[in-house]
C-alpha cells in the first residue's frame, strides 16, 4: 500500500480514537483505555515473539511487576512518573537477567522456562503479604496528576493512556525502521546467515526480549491506576496466554498486529456479553480456525488479500489491450 494511503488510514484511526470518548459512556471509555493498555503489553510481546521469534509466556509477570511497582510506590510518596519509569526499567533488567541464560535453549524450552517463571512470580505475589498484600491485593490506587491536570476522570485517564500508547508505538516504529529492524528480520529468518553477516544474534534477541518485557512493565504501570485495585490472580499464566493469543491472532511480526489482537481480546467479551461465557468458547474456536487457515493472523489475512488484489489488477491490466 502507498504511504499516502497508510497515512490517511492512520489519520482516520487517530481521529476516531480522539473523538470516541465524547460519544461513549464512562464504561465504554474504560474499555477503550483497557485496549490501549493491553496494546502496549502486546506491542512488547510482538517484539519478542513476532520480530525476534522467541516464545515468551512471561509477559504477565512483567505486567504484574510494573503494576505492583506503581501501586506500592505511590502511597510511599513517590511521584507517578518516577514509579512508572522504575517499573519499566526493573522489568527491562529482570528480562535481561532472565533472558541471558534462557535464550540459549531451543524455542520450545523457552516457553517452559517462561511458564515456570510466571508461575513462580505469581506465587511470590500471592504469598508475600507483607509486600504485596497477598490475596487481599492493593486497593485505592490513585490516578496521576500532571502539572495540575488530574487524570482521575475516565476521559482524562483515557487520553493519558492514549498518549502513552502513541509514545511507545512511535518508539517501536522507530526501532523497526532502524537497522535494528533489519537485524530482527535477519535473525528470525536465517540466524546462521545473519551471524555470518555480523549480526550479533544473541545481543539482538536479548534486547528484543528485555525491551518487550519493559513494555509489559509499562503496560502494568498503566493498568494499576486504570483499575485502581490489583490482586495476584490478574497476573497469572492466564494473562500471559491471553497476551500471546492477542499477538498471534492480530498477526505476529506485523506492526499493526498487536493493536488488532488487543482490540479483539478486549472487545469480544463486551460484544458477546449477551451469550454469557460462551464468548470464550467462540474465541477459542476462532483461534483454532485461524491457525488452520491463516496462521499469520488477521494482518496476515489482510496482506494476503492485498497481494491477491494486486495480482488480479496486474492480470487485468495485462489482459486489457
Amino acid at each position, binding site marked *: 500500500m502507498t504511504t499516502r494511503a497508510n497515512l490517511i488510514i492512520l489519520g482516520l484511526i487517530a481521529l476516531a480514537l480522539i473523538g470516541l470518548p465524547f460519544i461513549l459512556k464512562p464504561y465504554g471509555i474504560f474499555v477503550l483505555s483497557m485496549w490501549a493498555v493491553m496494546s502496549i503489553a502486546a506491542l512488547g510481546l510482538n517484539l519478542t515473539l513476532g520480530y525476534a521469534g522467541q516464545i515468551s509466556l512471561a509477559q504477565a509477570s512483567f505486567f504484574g511487576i510494573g503494576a505492583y511497582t506503581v501501586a506500592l510506590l505511590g502511597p510511599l510518596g513517590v511521584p507517578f512518573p518516577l514509579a512508572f519509569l522504575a517499573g519499566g526499567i526493573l522489568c527491562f533488567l529482570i528480562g535481561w537477567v532472565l533472558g541471558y541464560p534462557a535464550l540459549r535453549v531451543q524455542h520450545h524450552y523457552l516457553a517452559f522456562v517462561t511458564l515456570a517463571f510466571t508461575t513462580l512470580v505469581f506465587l511470590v505475589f500471592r504469598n508475600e503479604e507483607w509486600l504485596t498484600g497477598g490475596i487481599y491485593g492493593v486497593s485505592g490506587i490513585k490516578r496521576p496528576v500532571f502539572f495540575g491536570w488530574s487524570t482521575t476522570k475516565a476521559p482524562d485517564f483515557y487520553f493519558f493512556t492514549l498518549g502513552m500508547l502513541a509514545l511507545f508505538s512511535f518508539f517501536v516504529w522507530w526501532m523497526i525502521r532502524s*537497522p*535494528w529492524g*533489519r*537485524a530482527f528480520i535477519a535473525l528470525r529468518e536465517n540466524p546462521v546467515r545473519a551471524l*555470518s553477516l*555480523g*549480526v*550479533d544474534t544473541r545481543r539482538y534477541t536479548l534486547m528484543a526480549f528485555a525491551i518487550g518485557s519493559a513494555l509489559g512493565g509499562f503496560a502494568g504501570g498503566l493498568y494499576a491506576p486504570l483499575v485502581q485495585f490489583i490482586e495476584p490472580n490478574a497476573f497469572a499464566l492466564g494473562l500471559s496466554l491471553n497476551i500471546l493469543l492477542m499477538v498471534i491472532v492480530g498477526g505476529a511480526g506485523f506492526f499493526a498486529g498487536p493493536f488488532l489482537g488487543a482490540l479483539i481480546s478486549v472487545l469480544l467479551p463486551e460484544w458477546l456479553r449477551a451469550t454469557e461465557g460462551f464468548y470464550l468458547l467462540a474465541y477459542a474456536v476462532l483461534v483454532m480456525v485461524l491457525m488452520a487457515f491463516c496462521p499469520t493472523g488477521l494482518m496476515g489475512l489482510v496482506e494476503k488479500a492485498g497481494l491477491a488484489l494486486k495480482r488480479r489488477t496486474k492480470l487485468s491490466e495485462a489482459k486489457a489491450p
Partner: protein
Amino acid sequence: MMPVLEVSDITKRFGGITAVNDVSFSVAEGEILGIIGPNGSGKSTLFNCILGQLTPSSGSVAVDGRKTTGLRPCDLNRMGVSRTFQLLQVFPQLNVRENLILAGQEHEGSMLSRLLGAPDAGLSAAANQMIDFFQLSRVAEERAGGLSYGQQKLLDAAMAFMAGPRLVLLDEPAGGVNLTMLGHLKERLKAINAEKGATFVVIEHNMDFVMSLCTRILVLAEGRIIAEGPPDAIRANPAVIEAYLGH
C-alpha cells in the same frame, strides 16, 4: 608482509571421523586462493572452522596476525571476514538494496549508534555501488525472493563483499549457475579483486571456473592437503588426478 589469513594445523574430529586433518596454509593480500577436492574431503568443514561456525579440535586461525580461533562468526565479520554458503542464503523478504545494507550495517558502530542513527546506516551509497558493480540495477527494488537463481547468486556474493572488505570466503559460488551467468560472475570477481584488492578463498567443484579464476590452488583429499600450487601445476599433478579418479 603479514598474510591476511593464516591457518595453522587445523584438525576437526567428529566422534571417530577426522574431517580435517592437520591443514595449514596462508593467504596473502590480493590473492585468489582456490580449494578443490573430491566430495567429502573436508572443504566445507575447513571453512566452518575458519569462520567460527565450528570450533576446531586443534590448531589455530589468525586474521591479519590476530588469533581468531573460537570467535563467533559475527565477531569475525567485524574484523572484515565474511562468507557465502553452498545453499543460497539471501533474505527473500527484503529487497536487493535492503539485503546489501543489512550485509554492511553490523560491520561498524555499536548497537546504540544503529538504533539512533539513520535508517539505512549511511550505507545507501555503498549499496548502490555494489548494485552497479554486480549489474543488479534493474532489480534493486525487488524482493530478493523474486530474483532468478543466477541473480540471487550475484546478490549473495555482493552481500559477502559488503560485509567483508578484507577477506571473503566463497563456498561453491558457481553451483547451479548457467554458463553465461558463470562467465559474468567470474568476470565480476576478477574485477573486484583487481579494482578493490579484495582477497578471497573459493571452494569449488567447477574446474574451469576455479582454474581460470584463481591464482593459487590447494587440493584437499580425506581432510589433508595433497597438493598446492598454480593452476597449471595442479592440473598436471598425478596425486590430484588419482584423488579424483580414485573415488
